[in-house]
């Protein structure tokens, strides 16, 4: 199989590069390889789109976790503050 053919066939490598690109700059060669692949592969283009959306959604999920419904129970908090006060008095 020729070099070009290998790039065009290799969705595993292309999706790997898509993930890498979201974290750091690709090398020139990687960038060219990815472009060649994506030019002929709509499935991986779709993968890239979904992957970016998933990142956004996970980030959103983590940010929205700072909500009032996640709370410690009051007893635990009371004991914790007492423990802190005790430590403060020791010093």
């Amino acid at each position: 199989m020729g070099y070009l053919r290998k790039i065009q066939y290799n969705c595993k490598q292309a999706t790997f590069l898509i993930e890498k690109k979201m974290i750091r700059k690709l090398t020139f060669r990687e960038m060219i390889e990815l472009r060649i692949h994506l030019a002929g592969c709509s499935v991986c283009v779709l993968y890239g789109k979904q992957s970016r959306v998933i990142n956004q959604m996970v980030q959103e999920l983590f940010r929205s976790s700072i909500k009032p419904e996640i709370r410690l129970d009051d007893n635990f908090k009371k004991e914790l503050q007492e423990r802190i006060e005790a430590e403060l008095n020791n010093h």
Partner: protein
Amino acid sequence: MYIVQDFASGRGDNLFKNLCKVLPTFPTNQQINLYTSFKMGAESYLLDPHKWVKDYADYLYAYAIRRISDEEQAKDLVQETFLAALEKAANFEGKSSERTWLTAILKNKIIDVYRKKSSGLTKDVQQAEHEQHDFFEADGHWNPAYRPLEFGIEDKDHLGNKEFNAILQKCLQKLPVLWMSVFTMKHIDDEDTTLICTELKVSPSNFWVIIHRTKLNLRACLQKNW
């Protein structure tokens, strides 16, 4: 009065040192306290442990629970964070807010948990490599069973959709702890890649395998369940 002016012009520290040299009785404890509160008031944040639980316990708990999904352990971490913070209080420079400072301490404790949990790591990555064959065929083509299809997240905005978030959360929980740790440290906390590799004892090439594999998994899980 001079002290105040000198603080305003940023020369407080020099003045303080000079006074130490010239005056044998300087500084008394009271003067040190005064000096510190001037300094804090002028340019720094203060610590007030009496209000920590009231102000930050829920926030820190939510931060921890999202990252380790274990209520008891998250509680322990919040407690440990406050206690460690008391010990380190003397080192607090007032450059960041109390909350940021406490969160940084908690973050290190969470990394410790990740590290302990990821001892079976080599096996994890081997498994990752192995299972990757399920997603792709030998020549690198998508295995038809896992080929991405449109499933409704491409254009519609699902941010904040409760039902979708519930599925997303389930899919996240299915991931091996190490992958989840690598993924959140990178994509949520935006930690430096080298730091993640060192802290979790992952080689750089395994780091990329995990990042790739995690996303393939998450995506497939969402496509299947949504």
